[in-house]
């Protein structure tokens, strides 16, 4: 029941919004729909894993033996909650933004939500691919229509990048389908046995698709441009939720299905991720544009998740799952601040800002908390996630380089502190200049959404148990499956 609702509420309300003309009612309806979705997702959190409310398994394409099989498992709970939580926050925080053809804008946003929900719940490979693409199409239109000056080329680059990746993944999925006894079900995929060269080929075909989405250096070049050019509401969804599709995809469709190559190429990919993290952090330090700074910091954070993922330990994997949620919340908080600043001052350049703290104390306090979460200070949610991930990497038994990996990955935390604190300093403190002299504090809806985010940051910072509880079982299953295959 829950999966169907999570999919259909945004889908139908999105389609319905195309017909609504009044801008205010469009905004209200969109917010309302997203809140209903959130309630359903919260209800899903309370159901026991594997409960019948969380599973749908209906006939879809009998000829292909593909079923409409959706399930909210432990990781699904975390990510559907993230998806459900981020949309109302985004809608509330950007309610001051005005869009031409606002009904289409909000309709496409809700369709994106439906696509994302589908991705996180699909247990059938073909269904997964379906939603994987469907989440992309509305985003393409959103960015190309409502984005910045260079939107058309930039969005197209983004689209082609991800489309190439997903087509490669499609070939791999079809290949695996024939080796799983012509079935797309994830359980059937678990039993696949391939020769090592084919296993490696399939692994890379799928991994490239996910790596582009994350994005992992060197597949990241679409990302800063797209984040910069997209309308901020879309950037929030892109970075808060959509990039998680990549990490999620690896956990669900690669690690348990092709564990041999997962182990074999773990070190290679970890090195890639670490180089990417350091590179992205260094680039972030050079940025003047707030959006680009957050974009590069996001690459660094995702890199750490990849490192922890390939460490293949319980603590690491659980850390990744929790961190996907935390990072989503935190980065949306960052974007809300960026959006508020841009709306107020008409610029995102740090060199033109300064002294906001005296004029807008509310904004300043909230921004500082979000920024501290970005560097994973204790008491914030990111600390829990990152601590678990580092713990997992350090304890990893599948690699000889666990200490090296831990140390070099930890280096990026220091770098993150450098660019984040520098950003705070430039934006909030110092002398107010001509641009910021007239600053007033942020509006109620922005403040409210930031307060919710800060609340979540602190709550999961001191009490991460619910998240740990729902993911624990799934991680055991996955690791068990992977070690079993290795044992044979």
């Amino acid at each position, binding site marked *: 029941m829950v999966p169907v609702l999570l999919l259909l509420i945004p889908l139908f309300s999105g389609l319905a919004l195309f017909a609504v003309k009044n801008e205010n009612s469009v905004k209200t309806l969109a917010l309302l729909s997203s809140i209903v979705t959130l309630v359903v997702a919260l209800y899903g959190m309370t159901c026991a894993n594997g409960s019948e409310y969380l599973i749908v398994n209906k006939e879809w*394409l*009998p*000829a292909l033996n593909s079923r409409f099989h959706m399930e909210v498992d432990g990781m699904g709970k975390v990510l559907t909650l993230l998806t459900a939580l981020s949309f109302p926050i985004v809608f509330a925080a950007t309610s001051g933004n005005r869009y031409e053809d606002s009904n289409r804008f909000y309709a496409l946003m809700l369709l994106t939500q439906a696509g994302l929900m589908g991705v996180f719940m699909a247990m059938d490979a073909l269904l997964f*691919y*379906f939603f994987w*693409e*469907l989440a992309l*199409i509305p985003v393409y*239109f959103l960015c*190309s*229509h409502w984005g910045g000056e260079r*939107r*058309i080329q930039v969005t*197209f680059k983004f*689209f*082609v990048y991800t*489309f*190439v990746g997903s*087509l*490669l993944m*499609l*070939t791999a999925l*079809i*290949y695996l*389908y*024939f080796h799983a006894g012509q079935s797309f079900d994830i359980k059937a995929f678990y039993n696949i046995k391939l020769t090592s060269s084919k296993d490696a*080929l399939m692994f890379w*075909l799928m991994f490239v698709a996910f790596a582009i989405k994350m994005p992992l250096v060197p597949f990241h070049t679409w990302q800063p441009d797209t984040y910069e050019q997209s309308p901020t509401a879309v950037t929030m969804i892109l970075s808060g939720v959509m990039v998680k599709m990549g990490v999620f995809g690896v956990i669900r469709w690669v690690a348990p299905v092709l564990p041999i190559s997962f182990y074999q190429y773990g070190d290679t990919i970890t090195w890639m991720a670490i180089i990417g993290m350091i590179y992205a952090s260094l680039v972030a330090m050079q940025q003047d544009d707030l959006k680009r700074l957050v974009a590069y910091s996001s690459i660094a954070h995702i890199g750490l998740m990849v490192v922890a993922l390939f460490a293949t330990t319980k603590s690491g994997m659980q850390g990744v799952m929790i961190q996907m949620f935390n990072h989503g919340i935190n980065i949306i908080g960052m974007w809300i601040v960026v959006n508020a600043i841009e709306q107020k001052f008409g610029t995102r350049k740090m060199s033109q800002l300064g002294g906001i703290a005296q004029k807008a104390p509310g904004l300043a306090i909230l921004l500082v908390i979000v920024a501290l979460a970005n560097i994973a200070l204790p008491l914030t949610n990111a600390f829990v996630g990152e601590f678990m991930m580092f713990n997992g990497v350090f304890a990893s038994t599948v690699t000889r380089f666990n200490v090296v990996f831990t140390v070099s990955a930890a280096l990026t935390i220091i770098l993150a502190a450098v660019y984040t604190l520098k950003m705070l300093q430039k934006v909030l403190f110092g002398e107010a200049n001509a641009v910021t002299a007239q600053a007033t504090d942020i509006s109620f809806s922005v403040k409210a959404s930031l307060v919710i985010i800060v609340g979540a940051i602190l709550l999961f910072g001191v009490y991460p148990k619910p998240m740990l509880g729902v993911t624990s079982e799934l991680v055991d299953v996955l690791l068990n499956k992977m070690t079993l295959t290795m044992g044979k």
Partner: protein
Amino acid sequence: MNAIIISAILGVVMMYSGVLTKNTSAIRNVAIVGLIVLLGLNMAEGCGYQLFHINTKGMMSFEKYGLLFNSIAFASTLIYFLLSGRDIEKVGVYVAEYFALIFFILCGVAIVTSFNSLLLLFIGIEIISIPLYILTGADKRNLKSNEASLKYFLMGSFSTGIMLMGITLIFGATGSFMLKGIAPLVTGAADAPLNIWLVSGLLLLFISMAFKVSAAPFHFWTPDVYDGAPSVFTSFMATIVKAAIFVAFLRLFDGAYGEMKGAWQSIISITILLTLFIGNITAVFQQSVKRMLAYSSIAQAGFMLFALFGFNEFAKEGIILYSAAYSLATIGIFAILIKMKDYTFEGFNGLGKSQPVLAATNTIFLLSLAGIPLTAGFFAKYYMLAAAIKNGTQFWLVIFAVLCAAVSVYYYFRVIQSMYFKTGNAETSTITPAFKYVLIVLAGIVILLGVFPQLLLSQMYF
């Protein structure tokens, strides 16, 4: 059998209707009603209801598969008449003849989907081709149309010659025109040294068929002919005709040469490689949407060739789905293109504002051609890829194909970008509400097939 005879009769009826009345909309309505009858009777034959019992001495056989394809072709033609019927009237004064020629082509289509003998294949192909030469040159006072017609005729004649030569060689080697008669000899040839005449005949036949479906390197006529012909007729020949010849292609090689797979699979791989590469890369550089569609049709042919490469149940089902998906989407795009004043990409600028229905449906058709999920085009491509992957060899070709599919996104999305994201004043001729409704229905079918492809495919078995 119903389809062949009725469509021929309808062709004659259309010719006489031109004598009896000069009212073009009456002629069009006769054509539409005739087509509905034709479609109905063809479907009736699928249920075992035959109007005519003629002993073809095994030269033809009417199976579900061919009949289903006929139905798709007739239904597509029906939609084509409904959308572009009025534009056919604008091409010239001989309206009734244009409709008559189209019915004769449909007769040819029905023959090539049910032949068992190489002679009937030849006759079917010729019945399709000769009316097409005329339709290409229908715009008599337009020099480009004349040129296209002449080019098509000359090149077409060559390929016909090559086909006849191939059939002759095969007859010489096997003593039979029948696909069933050839098959055992081919099977025997697998371990014995290959019969050189048989192989050369096969190769010549392959070349002439590749010419007809505009597969590289025999595609050079396509852009000029598609571009020069009146747009309404381009729409017809790029879709229904092409798909029909693909079905014939599959039938020919399925019936006669299935066992010789290994021998000609490398030839097909190279053809696919070239067709996909040339079609997609050249399409990127086009400035006119019409010419882009011509190259896109070459690129799509490259994908359809995977059916020949794969040769399994996925291929057979896939070519049906591909024909439907590709024909419906392309007919829709052409119908919209014909309404545009300016055929370049810039001509579409701002269409999203001025004609939202046209732009929205056009987007769905383009997404379908690009193979995005939720549209029929996705499952079409899916089946082709599955056919090739199941085949098990040459996985690199599949990867090459999907990379080409990614390239195709570039030129399809250029139209979408023009329509929605660029400002401009796209000029169209008058659009009737009926035209919009048919477009919406067509887009609905494209999406329906994109979610439940079995609606079409299950017809093959029941």
